[in-house]
């Protein structure tokens, strides 16, 4: 199995997409900065958001019970799922009970986490992802590479080719407006013919039993206004206490995500559509375990805006697929190991600890600190490769002994003079040249200075 660095290397050196991927995401980050600058109380909003989430987590059991009671009185069916298999089974059972054939789905990273599409398709159902980016990656038979911009790794030429194959669009016409029109037309028929609409959830309100879904395309609204059954899938961490708290989160979410002041559609659902049925499935899948980790539990506050990805130099250059995790980027690099430390052990090590993710996070998650803490945990768990382990051990011994340290200094001076050696000894040296070593070490200068003063 390849690790994160190897997969990122393939994106950078083979796909040729890295420079524009970097540029596109940096542009989104710049838009975020502009949007933030229009709100003088931005830092206060972030702090309040962080506190609301921390409070909710500290009383999550009560809020979930309150949410369930209010859903019931709204006529909404609530289901609890411990594992992805539980969630998939609940959804499949509803689909079977309704005799459903065709499902339209709007964006939900949680259903990606559960591989819900595969489970439903395996049972003979047709599932159509309706967010344009999600539809593109679904047709390409790959997962989204970014949580807000699922197809950010694809070019319009690739999409033109893809739509020509699937929707018989004009060959060679790669105009984004034309291609979006083609998708709009095709998906209209899917919306009108669907038996069930599945959505994710951005926020769930304990006080009223309602859920909020944010989109720009309007696909969640179409997907719930037409089919008679709406199934919303959410992690238990999506709860907030009351509707007034939405004022804080709706002001932060879109500005952080794309630089918009608010998403085009911010939709509040409390009851099923007339003559319809509404279900909410709540998933644990490791979230309650994460709640018990003081160093990592803040990651449960994430509102999935993607700002940490857009700003991260590693993500921008290496692409989202290189992470090999449902949620990529800085937040994914801390969530990944918490789900499966062995499978995602290489993620926290890609971080440069620049701290940019922490600086842009709308709910103040201490992302780079978490990644550093994960390195410690992963090393203790014995997942660090032998060479790295031995090197670090040697480094530890060397800096603890003045004699060995002096010897190492001489060695570094030699390496600096032979660039070939530096390039081949460490991957870090591949694209970097060694700085010129000072003629005299600090120690030599210090001793000389002491001697001068004695004279």
């Amino acid at each position, binding site marked *: 199995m390849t690790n994160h660095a190897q997969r990122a290397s393939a994106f950078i050196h083979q796909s040729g997409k890295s420079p524009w991927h970097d540029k596109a995401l940096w542009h*989104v980050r710049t838009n975020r900065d502009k949007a933030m600058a229009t*709100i*003088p109380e931005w830092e206060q909003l972030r*702090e309040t958001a962080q*506190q*609301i989430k*921390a*409070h909710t*987590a*500290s*009383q999550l*059991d009560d809020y*979930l*019970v309150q949410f*369930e009671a209010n859903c019931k009185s709204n006529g909404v069916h609530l289901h*609890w*799922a*411990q594992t992805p298999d539980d969630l998939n089974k609940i959804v499949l059972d509803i689909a079977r009970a309704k005799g459903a054939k065709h499902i339209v789905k709007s964006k939900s990273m949680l259903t990606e986490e559960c591989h819900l599409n595969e489970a439903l398709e395996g049972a003979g159902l047709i599932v159509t992802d309706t967010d344009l*980016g999600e539809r*593109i990656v679904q047709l390409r038979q790959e997962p989204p590479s970014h949580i807000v*911009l699922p197809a*950010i790794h*694809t*070019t*319009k030429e690739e*999409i033109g080719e893809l739509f020509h194959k699937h929707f018989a669009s004009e060959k060679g016409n790669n105009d*984004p407006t034309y291609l*979006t029109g083609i998708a709009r037309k095709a998906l*209209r028929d899917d919306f*009108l013919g669907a038996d069930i609409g599945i959505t994710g959830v951005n926020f769930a309100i304990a*006080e*009223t039993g309602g859920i909020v879904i944010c989109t*720009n*395309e*309007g*696909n969640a*609204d179409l997907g*719930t*206004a037409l089919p008679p059954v709406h199934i919303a899938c959410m992690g*238990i961490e999506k709860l907030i206490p009351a509707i*007034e*708290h939405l*004022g*804080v989160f709706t*002001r932060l979410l879109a500005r952080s995500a*794309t630089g918009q*002041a*608010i*998403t*085009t*559609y*911010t*939709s509040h659902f409390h*009851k099923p*559509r007339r003559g319809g049925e509404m279900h909410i499935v709540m998933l*644990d899948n490791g979230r*309650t375990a994460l*709640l*018990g980790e*003081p160093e990592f539990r803040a990651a449960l506050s994430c509102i999935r805006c993607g700002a940490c990805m857009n700003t991260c130099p590693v993500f921008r250059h290496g692409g989202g697929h290189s992470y090999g995790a449902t949620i990529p980027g800085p937040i994914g690099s801390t969530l990944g190991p918490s789900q499966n430390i062995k499978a995602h052990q290489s993620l926290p090590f890609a971080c440069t600890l620049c701290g940019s993710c922490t600086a842009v996070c709308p709910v103040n998650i201490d992302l780079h600190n978490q990644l550093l803490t994960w390195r410690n945990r992963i090393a203790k768990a014995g997942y660090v490769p032998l060479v790295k382990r031995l090197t670090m051990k040697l480094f530890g011994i060397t800096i603890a002994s003045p004699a060995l340290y002096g010897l190492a200094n001489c060695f570094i001076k030699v390496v600096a003079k032979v660039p070939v050696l530096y390039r081949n000894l460490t991957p870090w040296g591949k694209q970097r040249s060694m700085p010129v070593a000072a003629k005299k070490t600090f120690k030599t200068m210090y001793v000389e200075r002491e001697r001068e003063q004695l004279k």
Partner: protein
Amino acid sequence: MSKAEIIAAIQKNKPPLVPLPAMVDYGITYADTLSQFKESLTSIHALLETYSSVDNFRQTFTKTDQANNAVYWQMDHQANETINMPHDYAHLTHAIYQGCVAVAENGAIFIDFTNEAHRSPFVLAQNLYIIIDQKHIVDNMHQAYGKINHQCSYGVFVSGPSKTADIQQSLVIGAHGVRSLTVILIDN
């Protein structure tokens, strides 16, 4: 039973109680709320027309309305109740709604669907019109959430026509929902 297990795990793992912050009113306010609202509408690609009354708008609209247009008026409750299926609105050209509250900081307008027979005209129509009284414009989202119906069966803050930038970051207006949004401002 998943519920009992999830609740038990939370009780075992949750941190000591963290206090809930008080919701003090620190949201941005504008010297000229109306002109900020208009500026926000431009940035979200919405159009703006001003009328002295809803009747005045309806008369003008009906006069220029073309025979082949299929128009949905939210205010025509009785007529709307006679429509059976939400799918029957598939060929709407225009949908006209009444907004409850408008927000200057982002141009969003809240529509409450609690008393509607169907939710679909709002997203199936090609063009959306939202009528909003100038008196119902607030500065920010905190104020807006203080004014909306907290129990709405379905309610949406709409800001502009539907859009996407999923194809190589090029902004395209008219993704799945409406292709245009015109805000009808009642200034009397």
